[in-house]
């Protein structure tokens, strides 16, 4: 799929996320906006999947370890045909399949339940190890937040994945440079001034024995090239460290930690949607 088409889908994920969060009156925004193009590229180009057969044994697995960004995953699943996009408006409602954090017992298409941070990479290790044992050729992809890699379990999993040489396992780090609250800088706590959740992740992952790839997470062609390079990894797990902007695509949300999770006013929503529509118009009519 062409890069512009993925950018357009990314914006559609953003729009649907904002509408659903506004409707629910709660939900995480910033970390979905930073990952939108990558979710679009994964579900429309990278993953070997079949929306008609969400439990197909040979499908690629995808784990959203940063489970608080569930609505972004639901949006891309709906756009890819797993369920009707209308259902997105049930997000967070009672009896909804679209829980605040992904619940694999409720919604087909979710390969793992996540939410308690730092736990998503380990099941990915289990899937890659299990695939090897079962002689399956599927790949396992795990999206990590830059804040959650503060959790020790991530590094337990990183160590074990390298020890087993799991080259069908690829992590994607959404390095958007903000976490929910974070540490103050020398100028104190301001909305856009926070210490980076992680310093030099490239060196850290390399030191753990992973193949490290870097890209601009908002440029689909770069992200897709990294995914191809990850497929070529042999004998080691790989990680794509994606440079992103938290809140990307909505000017007043970008680089502001407060939009990690914050209710929108009607005016906020209108302004955000207008900006995204304008961005789509700049992309042209498309193919």
């Amino acid at each position: 799929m062409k890069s512009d088409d993925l950018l357009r889908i990314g914006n559609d994920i953003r729009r649907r996320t904002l509408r659903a969060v506004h409707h629910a009156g709660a939900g995480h925004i910033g970390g979905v906006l930073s990952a939108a193009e990558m979710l679009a590229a994964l579900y429309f180009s990278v993953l070997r999947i079949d929306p008609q057969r969400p439990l197909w044994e040979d499908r690629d697995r995808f784990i959203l370890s940063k489970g608080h960004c569930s609505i972004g995953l639901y949006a891309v699943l709906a756009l890819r045909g797993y369920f009707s996009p209308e259902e997105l408006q049930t997000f967070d409602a009672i009896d909804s399949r679209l829980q605040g954090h992904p619940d694999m017992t409720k919604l087909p298409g979710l390969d793992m339940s996540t939410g308690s941070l730092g736990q998503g990479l380990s099941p990915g290790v289990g899937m890659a190890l299990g695939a090897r044992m079962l002689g399956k050729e599927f790949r396992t992809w795990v999206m990590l937040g830059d804040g959650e890699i503060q959790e020790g379990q991530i590094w337990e999993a990183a160590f074990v994945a390298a020890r087993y040489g799991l080259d069908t396992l690829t992590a994607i780090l959404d390095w958007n440079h903000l976490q929910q609250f974070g540490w103050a800088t020398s100028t104190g706590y301001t909305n856009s001034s926070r210490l980076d959740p992680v310093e030099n992740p490239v060196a850290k992952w390399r030191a753990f024995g992973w193949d490290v790839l870097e890209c601009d997470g908002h440029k689909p062609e770069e992200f897709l090239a990294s995914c191809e390079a990850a497929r070529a990894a042999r004998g080691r797990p790989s990680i794509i460290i994606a440079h992103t902007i938290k809140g990307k695509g909505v000017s007043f949300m970008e680089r502001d930690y407060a939009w990690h999770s914050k209710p929108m006013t009607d005016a906020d929503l209108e302004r955000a949607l207008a900006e995204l529509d304008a961005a789509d118009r700049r992309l042209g009519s498309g193919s």
Partner: protein
Amino acid sequence: MSTQLAQREIFGDTMIELCARDPRVVLLDGDLANSTKSDKLASAAPDRFFMMGIAEQNLIGVAAGMATLGLRPWVSSFAAFIATRDLDQIRVVVAQPNLNVKLAAHYSGIMTGYTGKTHQVVNDIAIMRSMPNMTVVAPCDAIEARAAMLAVSEFAGPVYLRFTRDPAEIITPADHTFQLGQALFLRRGADIGIIATGGQTLRTIAAAAALEREGIQSTVLHVPTIKPLDAAAIVEVARSTRCVLTCEEHSVFGGLGGAVAELLGERCPVRVHRLGLHDVDGESGPNQALIEKYGLSVDDVTRAARSLLATL
């Protein structure tokens, strides 16, 4: 002395048996294989044994990921680490998604080979039985441990199995078939009902024999499945005796005693006394000394039974 056998020894043997029987069974170890006797499988079927290092949180997540593929992973570590260090992992990626992961919790209770309190957990039953979707099993001897493993391996869901460390007497018949959720009447008598679980059942049987010599007739109910609880059997004990004594190598908070008291409070209120550890951790020491200090000996059980009867 009768034949003695350790639950961990038969655990290793039974893992080999399960792997031979079912190509989907695998074992994940937290670097304790030579303690838990998982090393038997590591030698017999190395392709089914996955060493996960000293990284217990990841251990649980890896097992969960494997379970989503239809594999049948068993996780082997000490009860203390599984029930407490891994608690959030078990809650989020095993119990909540109801994945088919078996948790082999070795070195349960306080008789853990001179390790002291860090390697003992006295509230694991309380923790695990309060967790939605979790099944909790505590066999009394090695033969029952094997039978329980065979039974739970056919059950598709998370199970916490509580194993003891040291060789102990065998009371289970060699051909015993374990029925998940079924308690076993080991003796019938009208004076007092004694309900026990895990290795403490062995000391309870000895206590019941001693009580009989004093003219006190007891019913002894062994409860190897603490969740789901065999409510009918426990109510029957309460209805057919004058009072109920629960016995476990575990805290009196929330374990078997808690489960029995909750049930009988609602279904058949009778006088209940809970024997177990009273809001304390264990310590290092020889088994007999530990049992005596923490009130779990045969004499402690008979004393508790007499005291309870004396209050009626």
